[in-house]
């Protein structure tokens, strides 16, 4: 490489210090501004600042859900319609999702005609069966991961479900 790389450490140190100073000052300046991203490069130095979109005033931040499927697909997929679980799981009320542990068919009761494992309003214990997912003729119990009250049952009896598909919502009971 060239002489430029070998120039005195002093000059380098100065340069580096000044770039840091500049970066700090830029950061301060950006607070309250509408700038979302800034990149400056000059003579081998560069500063790049990207801000939290939410911190930018008036901006409606784009929400990225944990499992996102940003409509980029050329073709619709069943996944697209069935990923509600993750979104609802994030709801702030303490409500939690019970999801399918595997791919198969969801049943609310252990056999046709028998009572459902749970109904809306039931208060249950962690580990209690809330349904089954049948796969390859094997019945797999779906268990509640937490204690609480069933507030909503989303999946229907006999419905095909994929991995982690939302089945029902459970909410902690306050006075427990």
């Amino acid at each position: 490489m060239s002489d430029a790389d070998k120039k005195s450490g002093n000059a380098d140190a100065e340069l580096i210090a000044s770039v840091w100073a500049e970066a700090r000052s830029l950061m301060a300046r950006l607070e309250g501004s509408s700038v979302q991203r800034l990149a400056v490069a000059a003579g081998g130095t560069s500063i790049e600042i990207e801000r939290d979109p939410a911190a930018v005033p008036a901006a409606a931040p784009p929400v990225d859900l944990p499992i996102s499927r940003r409509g980029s697909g050329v073709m619709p997929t069943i996944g697209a319609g069935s990923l509600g679980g993750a979104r609802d799981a994030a709801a702030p009320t303490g409500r939690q999702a019970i999801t399918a542990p595997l791919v198969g068919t969801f049943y609310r009761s252990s056999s046709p005609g028998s009572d459902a494992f749970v109904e809306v309003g039931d208060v249950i214990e962690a580990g209690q069966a809330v349904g089954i997912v049948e796969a390859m003729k094997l019945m797999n119990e779906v268990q509640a991961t937490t204690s609480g009250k069933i507030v909503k049952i989303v999946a229907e009896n006999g419905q095909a479900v994929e991995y982690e598909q939302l089945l029902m919502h459970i909410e902690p009971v306050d006075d427990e």
Partner: protein
Amino acid sequence: MFDKVLIANRGEIALRVARACRELGIKTVAVYSTADAESAVVRFADEAVHIGPANAARSYLHIPNLIGAALNTGAQAIHPGYGFLSEDPYFAEICADSDLTFIGPTPEVMEKVGDKATARDLMSRAGLPLLPGTIEPVGTSDEAQAIADEIGYPVIIKAVAGGGGRGMSVVWSHAALAGLYTQTRATAQAIFKNSGVYIERYLPAPRHTEVQIVCDGHGSGVYLGERDCSVQRRHQKLIEEAPSIHLTEDARRDIGEKAVAGALSVGYTGAGTMEFLLDADGSLYFMEMNARIQVEHPVSEMVTSVDLIQEQLRVASGEKLSVTQDDVTLRGHAIECRVNAEDPERNFAPAAGRLDTYVAPGGPWTRVDSHCYAGWTIAPYYDSLIAKLIVWAPDRLAAIERMERALSEFQIEGRGVKTTIPFHLRVLAHERFRSGDVTTGFIEEFMAEEAAAAVADAS
């Protein structure tokens, strides 16, 4: 033909299969682990089913979820791609039990050809040449010694259940045999839960040469020429080409006909590959059969104009092959470079990450089979293959020049991401590669040469 096929795989091969299905008017169901929710095949497919977490054991290898996904979506058949469950007779059997067509040979045939000793025995009977050595596992050290003495040294001891270069020992002298025999058995037991080993002549400088075949369920089979895959690093193929410039037209026809006869003799259906070692004297020795589509199938497609995935789908659905042996003529030369997310400067350590830039090469006779796009995150959970770059040209040297051009315009950038592209460019520039005089030891020698040059430069 099928109406709907589930693709039990990920990455480039899942997209490759989905493309073939779309071209044949077949609806596609992609499956994906949590890490692959944004993958190209999920975007491309008509439907997609979430089958488990990133860990392949709980997603791409989890049979109940795959079967469930197929049944839930009404798919009639499952294409297993390569790797994962593609050579698992148990999976093929469960598909059959669930009234799903497994796109590949029957479980019985898969089981037979999957066992190396059985495969060698069957293929030998069908006329395929074997290396001097045993077919059956060798039971005792004394027996091993007698056999090795008869074959003549060097010999190689190999695990019956082995693969990927593990569970093998080269023995250069009578004195060393007994010790290495015992040791290889122990290794085989530890890795493959099967201590069976066999012994055969060791070729110090062979060329990996494999013949592509496809058979339908009506008793017809064709061979689609051969591929030379001698550019390997630790038994991982890096560059493949078709045809081999070391086979005469007669040898090609002879081994092709024998490969088809061997496959038909065991009732093989679908696409498959017979692997051979090509010795310096032009002898070909059958090594094993792969009962699936292979990563490097595109080079055969480019020189024969036959779409192998479409043929797989055709024959699995009960149709006849779309081509006869007479229709298959070789034209020109094709080369494939496997672009892996690995750092050649750090011993090919995986170098995954998010792709900020991904600009694939284009232009004439340049094919890219890849699931990548700008914004895609290469996950560390799966294999490091991120793109197959395939070029065609009228002759081998023109194909090399085209590959260099295409590699030079491939832009893959991202924090932490490194690829094998610079390594490929150095291999392609090497006089020995250009001359075609490449054996399976070439890459080790090439790397040693580079290391020596680096030391010389530094001093």
